Structure formats: structure tokens, C-alpha cells
């Protein structure tokens, strides 16, 4: 009886154990964060990018809407978080150009509320703009959302917003995470919520639309409503992730949220596997760790005692290798790391069982 129960829930039990192990690991490196600064930076960045990547995967991978507006929604979240959380004593020195808006000068919000507020504003803007935009077909939708993200960026950087967003000068001294654990908890909650949405009845609607829009309509799914919900939820989490990114980077400017940020996240989604939750998370870690690991190629290096100092190894070479690797994935491993599958212990056990059967 007991064993049966164990086997039945093996997946959940193992997942919980793994999460606890992750927490313990993070707790240890958090405790001596002096020596692990580099590691902590990479983990925090990967976690934040995982949230954005998953929010993008929600629209692209699960609903089949090719939306490229993520950077714009992140910008909204990042700026709102920054505006409401920068300590009051620093504000005057940051808004040195035109001074700060009188209403905002003394207003602060606790960090979680500011982050959620950022997400909500992003979601509201997405809801309004989604009504006309979401009727567009695939590539038109892509270019329209890309345009939307550029419009948001232009508005933030415009001189008229100087007293609110500090225009093109950017914001500094944003309070950071108290430790990697805090970042893990925020990102973990976001990822969990998105996973719940994807596995809910709405999530099944999204997948039906992705597979065949006409057939989905025929079985009675309200296409427009489902698309709108997917777009709004995705934008909400993009806004939240923008707030987290602002906390991670501690200083933001409008140029951070250019089209290239969207492209970078899209490449994470593709690498991890379009339509896979765990794929996006793994993709984010692979990309961020890979970028750091390839750093050795930025300057002459030694391998097996030989000094390799060909002139090709200089600043920027890692990004060339990185983009070639990504092109290889896009061209030859179209499914990415995870394909449409999920990383669960059930699947791993199944995988090994199948292998065992083959050997027999």
C-alpha cells in the first residue's frame, strides 16, 4: 500500500526533493556570498531570463501567436518598479536634469507590490492594444508587436517624460535582491503560476488554437478571448520579469529594452524548445552559462599547456561562436533541447525503461 502510493507519486516526490536540493544549494552559496558573487550573478540572471522566456513561450509556443513585444512590456515593469522603489534620499541626485515629478518624489512602495504593479500596468496596456492587434495574422502580428515595443521605448525615452522616467538618462540605485534566495522565490512563484495557467483549461484552449485555429473555433473555443487572455498573462509576467531585471541590474535605461533583448529571449525559447516549460528554464540557464563559459575565447588562452594566441581570439569572439551555435540549433535541431516535452521524473523513468526494453 505504502509502496504503491510512493510509486504513484514518485514524480511529485522527486520534484519536491529536487526543489529542496536547489534551495539548500542556494542557501549555501547565499551564506558565503562573498566568494560566490560571480555564480550568484549568473544564477540570478538565468532565473530572471527564465521568467521572461517562459512568458514569451506562453504566447509563441503554447498559443502560436508570434509576438515580439516582450522587451516593451519588460520596460514598463522595470521602470515602474524602479520609480517606486528607489530610496527617496537618492532621487534628487538621479533626476538631476529636470527634477522629479512632485507627486512621485516621496512615494515608495514595497518591492513585491511595485513589481506586481509593473506587471498589472503592462497587462492593461497589452489588453487594450490586444483588441485590435490580435486579429492580425502571424508575421503582421510579429511586426506590429515589435512596433509596439519600440513605441513604448520611445515614450519612455522622450523628453516629455523626463520628470517621471528620467528620459534617456536612465535610472540608477534600484534596490537589489537581498540574496539569491529572494530572487529564486520571486522567479519560482512566477514560473509556478505560468505552469498552472498552461495546465489549466485555458492552457488547453491555447494549445488547441496553436494546432488548428479553425478546428478550435469549430469545437466552440472563443478564439479571440483565449488569444487575449494568453497575451495579457504573458505581458503581465513580462512586466514582472522586467521589474526583476531592474532589481538584478540595479540601473536601467531605455536602450536596455531594445529589439535585441526580445531577440535574445526568443533565441532562449527556441533553444529550450518551443512549447516546453522546463525547456525555457533550461534554455535560459544554458544560454547565460554558455555566454560566460565562452568568455575564454575573448582573449588568447592556453589549452593543454599550449598558448593559443591566434589573432581571431579577441573581444566579441564569444558572441560570434554563440550566434553560430544558435544558428546550428535553429537549422538542424529545430526542436531545441526539450522539443515540446517536459522535464519530469516520469518522463526520465519512461526514457530509461524504453532503453532497457530495447536492450533486451
Amino acid at each position, binding site marked *: 500500500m505504502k509502496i504503491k502510493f510512493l510509486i504513484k507519486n514518485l514524480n511529485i516526490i522527486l520534484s519536491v526533493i529536487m526543489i529542496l536540493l536547489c534551495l539548500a544549494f542556494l542557501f549555501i552559496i547565499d551564506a558565503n556570498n562573498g566568494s560566490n558573487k560571480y555564480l550568484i550573478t549568473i544564477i540570478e540572471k538565468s532565473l530572471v531570463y527564465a521568467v521572461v522566456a517562459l512568458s514569451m513561450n506562453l504566447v509563441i509556443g503554447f498559443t502560436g501567436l508570434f509576438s515580439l513585444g516582450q522587451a516593451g512590456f519588460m520596460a514598463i515593469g522595470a521602470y515602474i518598479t524602479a520609480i517606486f522603489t528607489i530610496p527617496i534620499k537618492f532621487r534628487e541626485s538621479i533626476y538631476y536634469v529636470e527634477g522629479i515629478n512632485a507627486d512621485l518624489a516621496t512615494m515608495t512602495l514595497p518591492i513585491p507590490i511595485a513589481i506586481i504593479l509593473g506587471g498589472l500596468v503592462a497587462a492593461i496596456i497589452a489588453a487594450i492594444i490586444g483588441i485590435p492587434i490580435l486579429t492580425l495574422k502571424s508575421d503582421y502580428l510579429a511586426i*506590429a508587436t515589435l512596433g509596439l515595443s519600440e513605441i513604448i521605448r520611445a515614450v519612455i525615452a522622450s523628453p516629455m517624460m523626463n520628470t517621471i522616467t528620467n528620459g534617456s538618462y536612465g535610472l540608477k540605485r534600484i534596490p537589489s535582491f537581498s540574496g539569491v534566495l529572494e530572487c529564486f522565490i520571486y522567479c519560482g512563484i512566477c514560473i509556478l503560476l505560468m505552469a498552472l495557467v498552461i495546465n489549466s483549461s485555458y492552457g488547453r484552449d491555447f494549445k488547441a488554437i496553436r494546432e488548428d485555429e479553425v478546428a478550435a473555433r469549430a469545437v466552440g473555443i472563443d478564439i479571440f478571448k483565449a488569444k487575449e487572455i494568453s497575451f495579457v498573462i504573458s505581458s503581465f509576467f513580462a512586466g514582472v520579469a522586467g521589474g526583476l531585471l531592474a532589481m538584478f541590474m540595479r540601473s536601467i535605461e531605455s536602450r536596455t529594452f531594445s529589439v535585441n533583448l526580445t531577440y535574445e529571449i526568443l533565441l532562449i525559447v527556441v533553444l529550450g524548445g518551443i512549447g516546453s516549460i522546463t525547456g525555457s528554464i533550461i534554455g535560459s540557464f544554458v544560454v547565460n552559462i554558455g555566454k560566460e563559459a565562452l568568455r575564454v575565447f575573448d582573449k588568447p588562452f592556453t589549452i593543454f599547456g599550449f598558448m593559443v594566441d591566434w589573432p581571431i581570439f579577441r573581444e566579441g569572439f564569444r558572441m560570434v561562436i554563440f550566434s553560430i551555435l544558435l544558428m546550428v540549433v535553429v537549422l538542424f535541431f529545430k526542436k531545441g533541447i526539450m522539443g515540446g516535452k517536459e522535464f519530469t521524473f516520469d518522463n526520465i523513468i519512461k526514457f530509461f525503461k524504453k532503453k532497457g526494453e530495447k536492450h533486451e
Partner: protein
Amino acid sequence: MQYFLEQCLIGISIGGAYALIAIGYTLVYGILRLINFAHGDIFMVAGYIMIFTTANFPIYISIPITIIATCILGVVIEKVAYKPLRTAPRMSIMISAIGVSYFLQNFATYLFTALPSNYPPIYFLKKQIHIGYLKTNMADILTPIITILLVLILIWILKHTKIGLSMRAVSRDYEAASLMGIKINNTISYTFAIGSILAAVGSILYFTNRASVFPYSGSMPGLKCFVAAVFGGIGSIPGALIGGFFIGLCETLIKAVGYSTFSDAFTFVILIIVLLLRPTGLFGEKIIDKV
């Protein structure tokens, strides 16, 4: 008034360069139904090729070299990044295009650093000209003329040559064209070659008035030119021409009034309005989706 007219001339000149790039988008979209996100970066690479060839050769040799090299680059990108995905879903090809764009930007950053490089002054194009009381330079006058001339040649190619005929056939119906014995792959290569040649010419005309190139200088003009192509109706060459001039003119006038931060955003506002009111653009054909 004088200021206004001078700004108009600049706008038309930028618009001409935009139109040339927009045609590249329109041609490729017409055939592959693909937004070639890398097109703007091809345009940027053409700028760098020009810098390096003028350092070693006189102008009249370096311009043809630039055009030929850009043309080869365009065709190679098609062969490497788009051809293997011919049967894949459209989203994969688009992601591949974004990947190519990412690669070209990183590669250019690696080779030439992220700092702007000086564009070689082409004295012939930089010459000051006075028309009445208007001051302008040769490039501003020549750009629209060259643009319209190239467009006329292109329309002639499309209407009266075998290549043009096959391009039109493929864009009308991909499968039927291949059944009728048209070599699809060759036709697509020609399309990319023509698009890249026009981008190279556009790049020379555009950067002459800018004086510097940097690795990201292609992405924004690239997107704007796509908007121009959508505005005119994607797949239509006169549409791309008019769209290019319209976007260039509007952008310059907005900058002239003093709202330069909004000039990029304005382009996208136009895009969204056009997509909502008339999704097929000014001259686009109506496409009916069949189940």
C-alpha cells in the same frame, strides 16, 4: 519656407534609400512569405564593405565591388539559413531570419567593434548644390532619381524577362510554378540577389548622408523599411516605392519640428494604423484564407 523645402528634399532622399530596401522586403515576402529580418543587417554589412573597399580602391571600382559582395552575401544567407527550412513551419524560417540578423550584428561587432566607423566621403555625392535659394548636396538630388530609375529597370525585368516571369509565377502560386517546370530555388536566389543589390545601392546613398556605420545601424532602418513595404502593400513594387518616400518624408519632418525621439515610434504608429484600416496596404492584393 526655405527650411521646410530643404527638409523635404532630405526626406525624399532618405525615402529613396528606404524605398530601395523596402523593395528587397517586398520581393522576398512575395515569394517566400517571410519577413527577412536580416535584410537590414545586409544593408549594414554593405556599409562596412564600402568602407573597406574605398580604403584600398578608387571609388569607381569599390562601388561595383560593394554591390557584388552584398549580392553574394544575400544569396549565401538564403542558401544557408532559409533553404533548409523550405518545408518547415513559417515560424521556424522567421526565427532563422532573426538568428541570421543576430549573427551578422555580433560578427560586425567582433570585426569592427561597436564604435561607429567613418563612412568614406564620396566627393561626387557630397558636392554642394544651390537650386534657387535652396542649399542641398548631390546625394539628395540623385537618390530619388537613382531610386526611380532602378525601380523602372526592376519593373522591366519583372515584366519582360524570363527571370521576372518566373519570379511572378512563383509568388503567385508556389506549387503550381514548380509543377510547370520553374526552378524554384534559382528563382528565389535571383530574388535575394536583386534585393541585396538594391540594398547595397540604398546603403551607399543612405550612409553618404550619415557619415558613420555601426553594427546596429541596420536594424532600425530595416524595420522602418519593412513598415514602408507594408504601407504600400506587401508584394507591390510601386507600393514599396511610395511607402519608402512617405516614411522618409514623415520621419524627416517630425525630426525637423523637434520631436526626434518620436520619429521611430511614429513609423510604427503608421504601421499599426495601416494594419488595422487596410491590412493589405495601399496597393496590396486581397488574400482570402481558405480552410
